[in-house]
């Protein structure tokens, strides 16, 4: 999967949002809120091809979490991003 071009991560006070900016192909009038963990993952995969396993590995590198929980969280987040229309499968 890959993040869709035109969606950028921006700080919003103590949170982060992903918002469509700057290219005409993006027709999007919602914001996707992200906590600092999701924002960390987005920053690391933005503009690149990635898999659920890549997200899991990034979680394991940064946080003290067991592999099963990291895999489940990564899969759930990837699903959420696809459903929100900011990542293409």
């Amino acid at each position, binding site marked *: 999967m890959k993040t869709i071009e035109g969606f950028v991560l921006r*700080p*919003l006070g103590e949170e982060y949002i992903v918002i469509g900016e700057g*290219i*005409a192909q*993006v*027709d999007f*009038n919602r914001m996707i809120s992200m906590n600092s963990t999701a924002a960390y993952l987005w920053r690391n995969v933005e503009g690149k091809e990635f898999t659920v396993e890549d997200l899991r590995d990034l979680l394991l590198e940064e946080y003290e979490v067991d592999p099963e929980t990291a895999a489940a969280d990564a899969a759930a987040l990837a699903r959420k991003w696809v459903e929100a229309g900011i990542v293409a499968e």
Partner: protein
Amino acid sequence: MTARDAYLYVLRSALWGEPLSESIPAAQLKEVLSIAKAQSTLPLVCQALLLSPGQELSDSQKVSMQNKLRSTVSLHLRSNHVIALLTASLRARGIDPVLMKGQGVASYYKTPYLRECGDIDLYVGKARYTEACETVAAMAGIEDVPEWSERKKHYNVDVEGVPVELHWTSDLLPKRYDAAYQEYSLDGMTHGLVQKAIDGEVVNTPADSFNAFFIFNHTWHHFVTGGVGLRQFCDWVMLLHAKAGALDLDHIKEILERLDLMDPWQVFGKVAVEHLGLPSEEMPFYNEKSDPRVEQVLDIVFREGNFGHERQELRNRPKNFFVAKVRSLMIHVWRYSKMMSMFGRVATCQFKEMLTGGIRTAAEEFGEK
């Protein structure tokens, strides 16, 4: 540091994306936020405070600020959606609109979605103005469109809850200057347009050099006629910064000199440089000499708030028609006398325009009674 200084410090931090190195005292915070609200810059100030470590913010203040940020982003998205809809609908009728101010200028901010949203101003020109109004009115479910009048520069309508102003001209200046202004406006609104992508649609914005003048003139116009907030100054600062080195300064100079606006431009320029942090080399025609009017302008801006909404003297309007009109006239005369003492002829022209316009409006209103 006064609350006003603290506010300007936080605002500069937001404009230039530099975290605050000093903490704003908790006792001053409420006033800083109140000033930010009056100046239509609250989202920018909330963002700067929340992003800077070491600020003395209570939990409830943090929640309230975070909510303000979220609601501002939502308004931007809704506004952008309506701009795209309007542009597509007008283009389908062969009318190519130009987005003025607002979301177009927001794109020059470091955080575009945190500029406080206003209405949508679309320029469509004179030739097909009525058709454009009918198109937009239909989108709002309105059947009757008022007849075109040269005295009224825009048609107001709400589309999906967003206020829209459809303009046949970018502005109307006092008679003495208007013919010259209309030449520059027509050129800046039809040639060298700058395109922005907004919610899936390519949207026109004015030519850069005309826009630099236009945003200044909009600020000046509101300042001299009734009150303006620092948001308008911020718009100008962000545009000048984004377009530094790319503006046709000879063209801007010609407009300013022909319209007698070089003096107010230079005074506002000092507000931009000395108080909002624009590098002086990015301020065209910057005058380094000190000028007491800079602080006077800022005092007025702080006292009156955006579009004069904080003007105490305008509250408690008398119910009697004639008493209200006389009182309103006296308030205007008092205010314009100050403007004329600061800016001379160009403010005097605005005063004459206000007088003739005011008398005409009062006569029309009286006739309707």
